[in-house]
């Protein structure tokens, strides 16, 4: 049995919470713990998104750790208000504050009391002990915390609430487009499509523009349905809306490829009561046409997929439907559900090895030369791809060694088509590079 983790295939929970908070308009994430956590996570996410990402910290000191972080939390919130004038502050705990048993709900209610009548930014908090789960869990939990603290029930209306998981800003824009074409109101949770992939600024913005306004999130209780793009998380996301406010709630895999996008659109048809718009039918056809044109390049090829469990599952379904065997599907999450989901969603799960709670050291010992034609996952698999001399198609998070991470497309027919082109071109390139003839026509 292996004990230590070597080159982890996951990040810690508060990071995911910070990303979820970046989807709220005017929100600044605040980590309750040591200064270092915030700085590391900023550095890590900035290198992927290439945008300013301010994450504040309550900057614990030894005294704070002994006497409790209430005062630091108060100071931090007051400083954030005076400096950033935020509409919301999303507070996540860290391993330190969880271990010393800080009761954040209590601290915040005391803070509110002390504060008296003056209007405050909206405050929500989530418990993200980094010794439990991964950054993906932190994301789902934070969305859950935002919704449970804000969602009110007033007037039931046509409104779909979606939690898409840690997709790219480009994917988020695609989702918004889908709802626009369906002409159906959308509340997109974790909408960092602008905050983490914005334009140039005339003058410095204290908080990146974009995200969903707090008032809109508070309408979540009026939703006609909610969907989470995960079948692997038992908590968080829109669960609160389903369990506590009796909303119809659906959990489906991230819509990547034809089958899973079909599932999403069929659900949209059912829930919105509208026919699937022509635009998507056309795009679906185009995707099928591309699959057809390229089927010989892809058939029988083998791929290793790794990353967040949700992404891995959907990728596996997509790869299988284009004739590629996802020989190894791996994630750093310790989730038993992935194997069951792969079995349920793939036609030939017996060809797939599923590994959870795995690190890159495990991955390296599992994949040998000749086992796979390419890797598909985040940047951190680069060394393995180099050692095996096979390409790495970069998807998901983090992408630290390529440009345009925020614009990588994964989801829906449109995103799948771009992804498909990348996969096929990678395979063609292998063919071209390994041929001695140097085909220019292939």
């Amino acid at each position: 049995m292996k004990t230590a983790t070597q080159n982890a295939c996951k990040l810690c929970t508060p990071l995911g919470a910070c990303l979820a908070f970046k989807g709220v308009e005017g929100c600044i994430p605040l980590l309750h713990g040591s200064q270092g956590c915030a700085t590391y996570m900023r550095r890590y996410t900035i290198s992927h998104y290439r945008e300013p990402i301010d994450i504040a910290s309550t900057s614990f000191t030894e005294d704070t750790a002994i006497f409790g972080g209430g005062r630091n939390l108060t100071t931090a919130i007051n400083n954030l208000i005076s400096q950033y004038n935020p509409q919301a502050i999303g507070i996540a705990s860290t391993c330190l504050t969880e271990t010393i048993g800080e009761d954040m709900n209590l601290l915040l209610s005391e803070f509110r009391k002390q504060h008296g009548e003056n209007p405050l930014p909206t405050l929500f908090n989530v418990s993200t002990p980094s010794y439990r789960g991964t950054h993906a869990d932190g994301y789902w939990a934070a969305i859950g915390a935002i919704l449970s603290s804000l969602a009110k029930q007033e007037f039931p209306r046509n409104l779909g609430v979606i939690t898409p998981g840690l997709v790219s800003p480009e994917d988020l824009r695609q989702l918004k487009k889908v709802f626009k074409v369906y002409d159906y109101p959308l509340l997109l949770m974790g909408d960092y499509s602008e905050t983490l992939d914005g334009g140039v600024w005339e003058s410095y913005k204290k908080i990146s523009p974009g995200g969903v306004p707090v008032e809109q999130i508070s309408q979540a209780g009026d939703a006609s349905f909610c969907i989470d793009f995960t079948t692997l998380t038992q908590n968080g996301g829109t669960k609160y809306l389903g369990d506590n406010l009796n909303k119809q709630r659906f959990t489906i895999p991230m819509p990547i490829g034809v089958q899973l996008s079909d599932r999403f659109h069929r659900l949209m048809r059912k829930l919105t009561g509208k026919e699937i718009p022509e635009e998507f039918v056309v795009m679906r056809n185009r995707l099928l046409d591309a699959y057809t044109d390229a089927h010989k390049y892809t058939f029988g090829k083998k791929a290793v997929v790794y990353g967040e469990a949700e992404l891995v599952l959907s990728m596996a379904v997509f790869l299988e439907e284009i004739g590629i065997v996802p020989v190894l599907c791996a994630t750093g999450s310790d989730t038993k559900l992935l194997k069951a989901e792969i079995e349920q969603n793939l036609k030939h799960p017996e060809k797939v090895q599923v590994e959870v709670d795995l690190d890159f050291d495990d991955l390296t010992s599992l994949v040998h030369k000749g086992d796979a034609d390419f890797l598909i996952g985040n940047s951190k698999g680069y060394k393995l791809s180099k050692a095996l001399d096979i390409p790495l198609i970069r998807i998901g998070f983090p992408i630290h060694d390529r440009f345009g991470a925020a614009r990588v497309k994964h989801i829906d027919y449109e995103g799948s088509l771009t992804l498909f082109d990348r996969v096929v071109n990678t395979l063609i390139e292998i063919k071209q590079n390994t041929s001695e003839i140097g085909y220019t026509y292939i």
Partner: protein
Amino acid sequence: MDYIAARQGQILVKGKDNFNISCEKKSEAGSVSQRACVFCGSRVVLYPVADALHLVHGPIGCAVYTWDIRGALSSGPELHRNSFSTDLREKQVIYGGEKKLYESLIELIDRHEPKAAFVYSTCIIGIIGDDVNAVCKKVSQEKGIPVLPVHSEGFKGTKKDGYKAACEALFSLIGHGNIDNVSPVSINILGEFNLAGEAWMIQEYYKRMGVEVVAVMTGDGRVERIARSHGAVLNVVQCSGSMTYLAELMKEKYGIPYIRVSYFGIEDMAEALYDVAEHFSDYPEIRQKTEELVADELSELLPQLTAFRNDLEGKKAAIYVGGAFKAFSLIKALKHLGMTVVIAGSQTGNKKDYEMLQDLCEPGTIIVDDSNPLELSKFVKETGADLFIGGVKERPIAMKMGLGFVDHNHERKIALAGFKGMYNFAVEVHASVMSPIWNLRKEVL
């Protein structure tokens, strides 16, 4: 706003404010400091020791955020480029992590056969009560290599305390090696991390002067070389913020004097060589060789800089770096490119550093300690800077505001030290400032 009130004393304008900066303070809660933590300080210093095992004891985050993030090169083993963690889970948080630490150490030492192991305690270790020292001692006895605890719980101080913990760990390695063959003309280089091969370049200079480099700490570091570093006659401290403490310890125990130098820019690089020659003035040929070396390098470098200077003359630069010593060198280096510095700041400078900064800067320069993005962006706008020199966290500020950026941090992959580094620096600055994008951004639709 404008500034958080408690930070008022940490921002000054030369010539306007009475110069008495308040620094060496803890970061204010909620100020989005650009600083890191104790752990970060330790990790940065020890990171390049390439044949040691670096095991981060705690939940996964700290280890994974520091996995292979630095440009510190090794000429041999590359163990340092991995991320090892005890990856504590709920169970260990409740029942303690000593067993997992012990098992992890044994497993990793058996597998990777390192020459030493550093065990970094992160935030929760003290709180869950692990006796890391005892585990390290036990493993050290069983495996016959030094296993050194590095007490770097994030909240127990600042990055500087992390430097100190790292220096202590290094210090306990020193003194165990054989020093019989060490030359009487020999030095250690402290606080040089071999980013993009800089330490190799600098060592080459000293070699050309006839000076033996016993150990570089910690660039391209090897446990064995560190262990015999007490044989050197002089310690040359480059990154003074992180390594002066070790130099002090060595002075006390082994009587090795130290000098502070900087390898950035022309004057400072030359001075770093002359100061060493000066120390060995009993060997006049060293001085002579140094003069030749500097003349040689400059005759190649100076003409190369002219072209850059023509383009860059009069442009304005903002500097915000970790240590103040680097800022001094950068100000001088920028002068060679015809540029003036309008903002100068550091994360960890002390009073003396800021006085020195003030001496080097033109009136009107903003001098700042432990700044944050809002302040920095405001200063940039006020001063109309054309270039920002900083680390990864400062980059997006520059990019959004529309000015050039040069990364002068531990993550850089381009050598900026030495004479060759000055040339690379000029290329970098030039490429950033002269890009057509800054003008294109001003076009209206």
